[in-house]
């Protein structure tokens, strides 16, 4: 397999490759720390102070403090890691998935019940694509 990164043509998708692995390492390792109950407790008590333990960029800190789930992916977050913040908040994967695509939890759940987001119209980035098709 070649290393062409041809997956960059897939819309709305943040592949956790080498570049994101370099920029997102500290952010994701912070998320990993939330697997320990005592760390979840410290984080909940004072989020900003807890984040001081990790060398995050100002933008990475902002995305965590504001729960900007999509923003986290853009600054190197990996969904398997950032979801641990959501679990800490009592949110589910569906709550977070809906927020990442700008849908309410209910609307997102309905889309899934109706068979999910259609792949047709969602294979390639298309600047002129019908905005309706983006929401399946």
């Amino acid at each position: 397999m070649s290393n062409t990164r041809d997956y960059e043509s897939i819309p709305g998708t943040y592949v956790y490759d080498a570049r994101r692995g370099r920029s997102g390492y500290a952010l994701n390792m912070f998320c990993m720390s939330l697997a320990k109950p005592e760390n979840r407790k410290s984080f909940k008590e004072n989020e900003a102070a807890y984040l001081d333990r990790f060398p995050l960029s100002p933008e990475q800190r902002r995305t965590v403090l504001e729960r900007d789930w999509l923003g986290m992916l853009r600054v190197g977050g990996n969904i398997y890691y950032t979801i641990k913040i959501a679990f800490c908040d009592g949110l589910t994967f569906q709550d977070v998935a809906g927020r990442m695509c700008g849908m309410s939890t209910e609307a997102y759940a309905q889309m899934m019940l109706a068979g999910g987001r259609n792949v047709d119209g969602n294979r390639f980035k298309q600047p002129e694509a019908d905005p309706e098709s983006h929401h399946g």
Partner: protein
Amino acid sequence: MARVVAGIACSHVPAIGVAIDKGKTGTPYWEPLFKGYEPARKWLAELKPDVAIVVYNDHANALSLQIIPTFLIGVADEFPIADEGFGPRPVPKVLGHPELAWHLAESLILDEFDMTIANEMPVDHGLTVPLSITCGQPAAWPFPVIPICVNVVQYPPPTGARCYKLGQAIRRAVAGFGGDLRVLIYGTGGMSHQLQGERAGLINQDFDAAFLDGLTRDPLALTRITHTEYMRESGSEGIEMVMWHVMRGALDEDAIEVYRHYHVPASNTAAALMILANRSAS
């Protein structure tokens, strides 16, 4: 001699584990999914394998980005249940099979598969949800388990073709183990799903159906699916299906389909369960 007798392909959606643990499997949302698991449980209870190899990916629980093994085998006597951020699942601890696991580790490495060896490792929903789906809620799991982890979290995962070859090497290694063991192998993850980005929620039932058909019709053709094709067609996390090739490669080329169940949605995911068996197994 020991031999692989059958394989199970199974999605490992965490919400399925939650539904089981919280007694929600009879609700209108979950009932159609769980009803389809019943024949598989019956089949497995009759098969009574001596040991199961479970191929899955860890989800930032036993492993982090600190060290990222592409292929890892667990050789411990037992594996505790991971706390994934909301406490460990209330399921029995997983007992290992260190004799066979160490034999596999040695054989695979000498057969040019450079396995990472884990002496201590908690196991997460990637391993326990397929056990719950196929075994229900027993007080103890009915067989010892050898975990094999495949990296699918940091791009790139190993290719489908490489995974298939690992499966073939597992089959050879099992056959070289002295002892009359009947081995079951699970390939977990998939099917189509995307958990991230503006495209979250993607499902591709046509891709999934073709993939399920291909497991018996032409498994080698499936191993040529590229990573970009998995992500484009079956969602960014659909790429977990490379792990099914390990299971498929461990079976005979002419293995048969015994059972298939497919349901959309299980949370964000198209959930499948397929049983394949070697003709010689019956």
